[in-house]
């Protein structure tokens, strides 16, 4: 009896749902798939996407979170396709793993905007984001400036194999390690973008090496973790730290001179541009293949400018 009741309620809900969706036929439906909304930077993009979506009268956003899982994201894209969305904004969890999803959307005639992360599939309509090699280069250049006579550094990586991890490392290689042979990398470890992990690795490194000049973290969360460890050891005068992303407390630390620099990645710009491009594509307008949002170096001098850009 109860089962039947529940079943009929479920049917009713589905029916009403169908009615509503068919009524909203004139609006543009955009499916937005994020890799992980527990990640602060991704959350910032998501907020910008929603804000921009509200600026349009006729745009309906369907926002989903893959919580860091490739398979979840694949099925979310499949759901978008069967829901018949007009465009998809994809913030891919994995470069290779999500490339079949792009094909499936294209086969269904749905335009795809790749946002912030790129898949290995070249069939997307537009990439809105930043080139992570660029971020690494900016970071590398600044480190080169900080240590002109060379020095000992430690590199904290994101999860091995993720595209930003590989590309940011490439930028450091090009602008720092290749150009200044006097820079010595003491150790490289992954802290998986995580603050607590970066902290304990840094604590161990401080024990292992007494000649660290600089810690190069591939994101700000790890930079902040390293900072906690360096601060606690009373070594903040000796060891410089650099990060990427310009999250609020990192900006604060840059302003106070505790972090030497961070690199601003424009979450708002990426989010709102993605929505704009998706709307254009849905209307059938032509767009460029790439919309690059530039990275900007943030140091104590210009930290104030960015203070509210990535905050909520």
């Amino acid at each position: 009896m109860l089962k039947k009741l529940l079943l009929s309620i479920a049917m009713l809900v589905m029916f009403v749902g169908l009615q509503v969706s068919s009524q909203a036929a004139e609006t543009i439906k955009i499916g937005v798939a994020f890799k992980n909304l527990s990640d602060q930077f991704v959350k910032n993009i998501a907020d910008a996407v929603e804000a921009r979506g509200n600026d349009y009268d006729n745009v309906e956003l369907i926002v989903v979170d893959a919580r860091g899982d490739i398979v979840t994201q694949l099925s979310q894209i499949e759901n978008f396709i069967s829901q018949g969305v007009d465009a998809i904004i994809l913030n891919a969890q994995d470069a290779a793993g999500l490339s079949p999803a792009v094909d499936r959307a294209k086969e269904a005639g749905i335009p795809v905007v790749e946002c912030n992360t790129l898949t290995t599939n070249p069939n997307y309509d537009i990439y809105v984001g930043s080139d992570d090699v660029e971020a690494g280069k900016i970071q590398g250049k600044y480190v080169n400036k900080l240590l002109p006579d060379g020095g000992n550094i430690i590199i904290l990586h994101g999860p091995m194999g993720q595209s930003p991890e590989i590309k940011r490392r490439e930028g450091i290689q090009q602008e720092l390690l290749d150009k200044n042979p006097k820079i010595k990398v003491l150790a490289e470890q992954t802290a998986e973008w995580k603050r607590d992990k970066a902290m304990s690795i840094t604590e161990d490194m401080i024990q292992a090496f007494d000649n660290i000049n600089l810690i190069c973290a591939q994101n700000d969360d790890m930079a902040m973790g390293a900072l906690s460890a360096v601060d606690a050891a009373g070594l903040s005068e000796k060891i410089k730290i650099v990060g990427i992303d310009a999250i609020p407390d990192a900006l604060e630390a840059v302003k106070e001179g505790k972090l030497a620099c961070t690199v601003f990645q424009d979450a708002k710009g990426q989010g709102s541009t993605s929505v704009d491009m998706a709307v254009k594509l849905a209307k059938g307008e032509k767009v460029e293949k790439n919309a690059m949002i530039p990275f900007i170096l943030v140091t104590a001098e210009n930290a104030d400018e960015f203070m509210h850009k990535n905050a909520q």
Partner: protein
Amino acid sequence: MNSLLKKHKYNFLKSQNAGLIIFLLVLMLLLSFLSSSFFTANNLTNVIRQVSINGILALGMTFVIITGSIDLSVGSLVAVSGVISGSIIYAHPDAVFTGMIFGILACSALGFINGFLVVKFNIPGFISTLAMLTIARGFALAYADGRPYVLSSKAFKFIGHGYFLKIPIPVWFLIASIIVTGIILSKTKFGRHVYAVGGNALAARASGVRVGAVQLWVFIISGTLAGLSGVILASRIGSGQPAIGTSYEMDAIASCVIGGASLAGGSGSIFGTVMGFIIMGIINNGLNLMNVSSYYQLIVKGAIIALAVILDQAKKKKV
């Protein structure tokens, strides 16, 4: 005299924890050879401070495991306590104590729910805490809207980074937790009841033990210690992070198991668990000191956990 000595030595080797102590000593000796920075006062302080987070979790987990259950939710509870205390201290930088208490009590309450589901609805702990693992994580993310509470309170920072008598504050919390849990487990009626419930719940009941109450309390203890751990972690990283603590339960469970606790219940001890999390911490630290690549770190860590348990089992069989 000679025979007395002999007898003494015999007893030590026969004691339940001898295997663990020997394993730990061998491991430390090995690491001292492999890395010159390992056996220094600074680094050992560093290790103890690092293990305090996992250590406090493992102490609570020990109670749950001895009753024959398991608490998978502790990692998420760490985040809950972090964001709740974080939100309070963010708004009122001086209300450090209040913030901490609320963070911890919130986790006690979630621990109570874990236990309540187990006792009242007869759901296995594995299931009820698995549900809590995702519910608490969702709660932490929703409560903080996915963002960390960045904390600049000096007083709060002291919890994670301060020293008292040259010993880091988190270590004092750890020591206090070890003493309190150790006394509860070995010197009180409740402690005996925990072992009896895990060893044979029916026999415990027939001996007048309120089995349900014991089960409820072990989850409350585990939740409370997860809360304490979360507050310390928040202070250590200067922010209440909703996404922190994923898979912390695994390290806590591994610590208990290395320490000789059986997942079937009825056995385990605070001393064993302390050995367990120190071994885990030393492995992590040593591998980092030697700059072993993270891929190999995973392999070595897993292998050492398996080895410690195999040695423990072999020793138990012999006795």
